[in-house]
């Protein structure tokens, strides 16, 4: 089954990383990503821009309401996600554990099975 591994962390902290620190985190994650790719389990990876760049469209009636900011004001924000092919929840959690070991800076991973997956081809 395909699992989404959603990455959460406090933006107060992640946006205070220097470029070198950010690069170091990405380099360590890359090792895990390469391993997953070699196993043929790696799907798309998305890193979102900060929630300050987010806009939310509330499905209000009669007209949807467009408001500034992310969907939820939380202490930790959704920063991006991985899509990984996993046999079962145990393997998905193992993968999340590996990512957590590579990026040991705090935050959380939400592991969630994928319902519909259309990779698309945006240009």
């Amino acid at each position, binding site marked *: 089954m395909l699992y989404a591994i959603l990455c959460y962390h406090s933006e*107060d*902290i992640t*946006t*205070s990383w220097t470029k070198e*620190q950010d690069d170091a985190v990405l380099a360590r994650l890359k090792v895990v990503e390469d391993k997953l790719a070699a196993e043929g389990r790696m799907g798309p990876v998305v890193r979102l821009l*900060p929630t*300050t760049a987010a806009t939310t469209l509330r499905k209000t009636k009669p007209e949807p309401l467009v*408001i500034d900011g992310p969907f939820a004001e939380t202490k*930790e924000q959704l920063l991006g996600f991985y899509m990984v092919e996993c046999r079962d929840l145990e393997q998905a959690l193992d993968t999340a554990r590996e990512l957590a070991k590579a990026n040991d800076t705090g935050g959380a991973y939400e592991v969630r099975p994928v319902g519909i997956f259309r990779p698309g081809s945006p240009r």
Partner: protein
Amino acid sequence: MTDVSWIEQTLGGARPQAVAALLRYFHDLDVAEEAFQEASLRALRNWARNGTPRDPVGWLVMVGRNAGIDATRRVKRERPLEDPSVLSTEEDSESVMADTLDAADYRDDVLRLLFICCHPELPATQQIALALRIVLGLSVPRIARAFLVSESAMEQRITRAKARIGGAGVPFQPPTAVERAERLAAVASMVYLLFNEGYSSPNGDDERASLCDDAIRLARLLLRLFHTDPELMGLTALLLLQHSRVDARRAADGSVILLEEQDRSRWNPRMINEGLALIDKAFRHGTLGPYQLQAAIAAVHARAKTPAETDWRRMEALYALLEREMPSPVVTLNRAVAVGKVQGAEAALTLVETLAERLDGYFHFHGVRGHFLKQLGRAREAREAFTRAIALAGSPAEAAHIRGLLDSLA
């Protein structure tokens, strides 16, 4: 990278909000800073063992508050110190903290902390130094290096600035809407000054240049707290869009490369995307302001893949709006450049000539004027204008650029 350095990084990220909240409790900057220090020391021990708590700011405020109360009691000798083990139990009750420390409180706390750094009696450079020290927690040696002064001089400067704001009444009541807007405006202009300190650094990669990153950090922090404020979106976008060109604006020898001649593949696409997203968001509010307009102008450049693709009509319209929001002969001079691209050199020169009196001592005025005279085939006058410009040039690179134009006249 070791665990400790990541904990330190987390402490740095949590610092503005934690110190700001502690200042609200103690009404004393020194006590607040010391309480944060103490909480940080305990965090280094506790987090290395138990991992980073879910809400680092809440943890630090709670532990710092207890430490600060202890310190105050110790000074007053009212009662003996509490057993430290009593304190450590509170470090675990995160859910309690989450309830007591609402995000809404932090907004005005952080704004207050930044605002007291902007005390009008302090010169701009001291406001900036104070914000770097107090809000971002930069070390005095680092700030000293960024401002190219000795450590002892910077230490003195910060101590004196602190004494000055300590004496002035710090406003602790919740601000009214008008006061909040005034504070935001003062703080935003301080952040912009900080950015420009870094941007004007003669080398592209030293400590001084890293002030740009600090300014962006503060702008993002403000925007996260006041995420519906279009001028803060504009400010953050402006800083990101200008900073996106940092790797392209210096030649190997350190000289400035003009925007039109920069290698645009070296512009940072992530910063550009974030800047463009923010300016789009800001414009939806329909309340224009100087930061939004300057960001929108930077965005016109950022959207153009080559200089020839620049939307000069939009540029001209934006400068006209900026001129109305923030009248200044320099803005008019910039509008003249856009007018030159859209309507031609004749119309542009007419506009430029209206500025002759006010900008007579300004390098760019004579450079731009010479450029349009040259385009109109008035070589003798162009030569005179370029010669004036060279005399007023602020750097060898500026002079060299004009000399190149002079040579092309021959």
